[in-house]
């Protein structure tokens, strides 16, 4: 399309460019600035230097607790979810009957995903007299205090997100199905066992997808809000008080916008550092074949 002005493409991009500036770049910079201020919406922001951050890391025990449970939550939920999604995808990848039925059944919970109706349902399932405890009783276990006990509450939310492993699984399954079958035949002729085949052929070929799922699930898990907000309200004893909940309450309940921005930036920094580590390490474990896209 040689006759066109070289700026024609930018015309089509103009909504994006405006949106990027107004709704992303500007707020991004503003939130960084706000994190160094005291701002309660009543008067103009007052620049206070690193005071918010000093307070966060020296005297704010709620923050310390919240940061800890967030890290525990992410580092349990993400690996468990990915491992389970991959495990099921591998089973579904065998030539099985009803594969479409199973794929759909496993995907439905993910589709309803963040809906608060699902969080509501979770409260009923895991209630003291709910069907989960009934099931445990039926096979001879003591009932578990899922939400009332600080040691279990966070895990109950992890279970909710594990139940939604479907979207990661569908992505894994698509990757597994795209692997060239002749590679497996070659491996079997060479006498490779199932585990060797999986480890040396399947795994390297799906590392780009593992990487993609890892980043996406991690960024998402760090921002978990609906689960704890509806199911436990952050309790008991702040054991499910994830950072997004803390940010929400500081910003929109106590209207302490400066302090909330500082917490948001700490959360952002953690996500960034982990993403950068993942990208950097991916050189060593992610395998890109000639035309693989990811």
């Amino acid at each position: 399309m040689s006759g066109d002005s070289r700026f024609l493409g930018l015309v089509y991009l103009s909504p994006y460019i405006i949106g990027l500036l107004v709704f992303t770049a500007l707020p991004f910079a503003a939130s960084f600035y706000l994190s160094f201020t005291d701002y309660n919406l009543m008067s103009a922001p007052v620049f206070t230097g690193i005071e918010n951050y000093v307070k966060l890391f020296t005297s704010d025990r709620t923050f310390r607790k919240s940061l800890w449970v967030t890290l525990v939550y992410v580092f349990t939920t993400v690996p468990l979810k990915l491992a389970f999604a991959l495990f099921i995808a591998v089973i579904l990848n065998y030539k099985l009957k009803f594969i479409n039925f199973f794929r759909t059944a496993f995907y439905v919970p993910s589709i309803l995903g963040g809906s608060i109706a699902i969080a509501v349902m979770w409260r009923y399932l895991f209630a003291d007299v709910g069907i989960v405890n009934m099931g445990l009783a039926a096979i001879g276990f003591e009932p578990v205090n899922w939400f009332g006990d600080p040691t279990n509450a966070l895990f109950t939310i992890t279970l909710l997100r594990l139940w939604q492993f479907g979207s990661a699984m569908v992505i894994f399954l698509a990757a597994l199905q795209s692997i060239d079958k002749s590679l497996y035949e070659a491996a079997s002729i060479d006498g490779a066992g199932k585990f060797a085949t999986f480890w040396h052929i399947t795994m390297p070929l799906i590392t780009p997808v593992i990487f993609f799922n890892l980043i996406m699930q991690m960024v998402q898990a760090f921002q978990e809000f609906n689960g704890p907000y509806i199911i436990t309200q952050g309790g008991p004893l702040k054991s499910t008080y994830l950072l997004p909940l803390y940010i929400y309450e500081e910003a929109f309940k106590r209207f302490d916008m400066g302090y909330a921005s500082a917490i948001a930036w700490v959360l952002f920094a953690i996500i960034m550092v982990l993403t950068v580590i993942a990208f950097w390490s991916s050189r060593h474990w992610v395998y890109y074949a000639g035309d693989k896209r990811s």
Partner: protein
Amino acid sequence: MTDHALSTPLSVDREAEQILKAQRRRQIISATLRYGVLFSVGLVMLYPLIWLIGASFKPNSEIFAGAGFIPHEGTVAGYVNGWQTSTPYTFGRFFWNTFLIVIPKIIGTAISCTAVAYGFARFDFPGKKILFASLIATLLLPNVVTRIPQYLLFRDLGWLDSFLPLWVPSAFAGDAFFVFMLVQFLRAIPRDMEEAARVDGASTWQVLLFIVVPLLTPALISVCLFQFMWTMNDFLGPLIYISSVDKFPVSLALKLSIDTTEAFEWNRILAMSVLTIMPALIVFFVAQKYFIEGISAGGVKG
């Protein structure tokens, strides 16, 4: 050849048969294991939803009385009472509000993302690389970091307690994921037809409208469906921006009914939960293909 076959000792045949048998047995065992795992996982996946639907038709006294999902004394009291809500409005009003949020948002998303993806996939212009990199960066940027200033911006614009903060960013191709997905899709479509049309004197926007959009339709349907699901499920957005009950979408209305009635009327909450997820469930089952394709092609959060 026949000679050779005849000279084969009988024992070898038997051995081969035994090996085959053992193989078949192993296959049956592993198939049973696989189906066992799949069925039990499927049960765990679906039973909560089946229970939810069943329990919404139970009287309150029955909800925690047993693990079965079939009500002994079925009742629609939960639906009738839940629909009335404890506010001056019925749940119908909240559904209407939800659609008032969802539909313009989908339209804005589809139009803006198509134009932007077309720009990225078919044109060269200064700064393209940086802009595309910014798209990927936005994809990874956690919303949590921009939320507070966005709120302040919308407050200064006087948009609080309206649907505008929920509509407008999407109308500016704010959902980078969809742009990315459409760009990927467009790159895979050959340009011959577009170039032929250009030679015949069509303008770029005519090409976009009459050639690219029809080719892009399956991908656009995926975009609309995902946006529908995500917006239906969105809770934090309305929670921050919508404060009057008469503008509540169902997600906020459900939260409100938990706060006001959960202590005693469980079936009401469950019934309204079922209604809340129904649109998403129906759309999913009707258009499943597009979801699976969309998610497999681009990879998706969720």
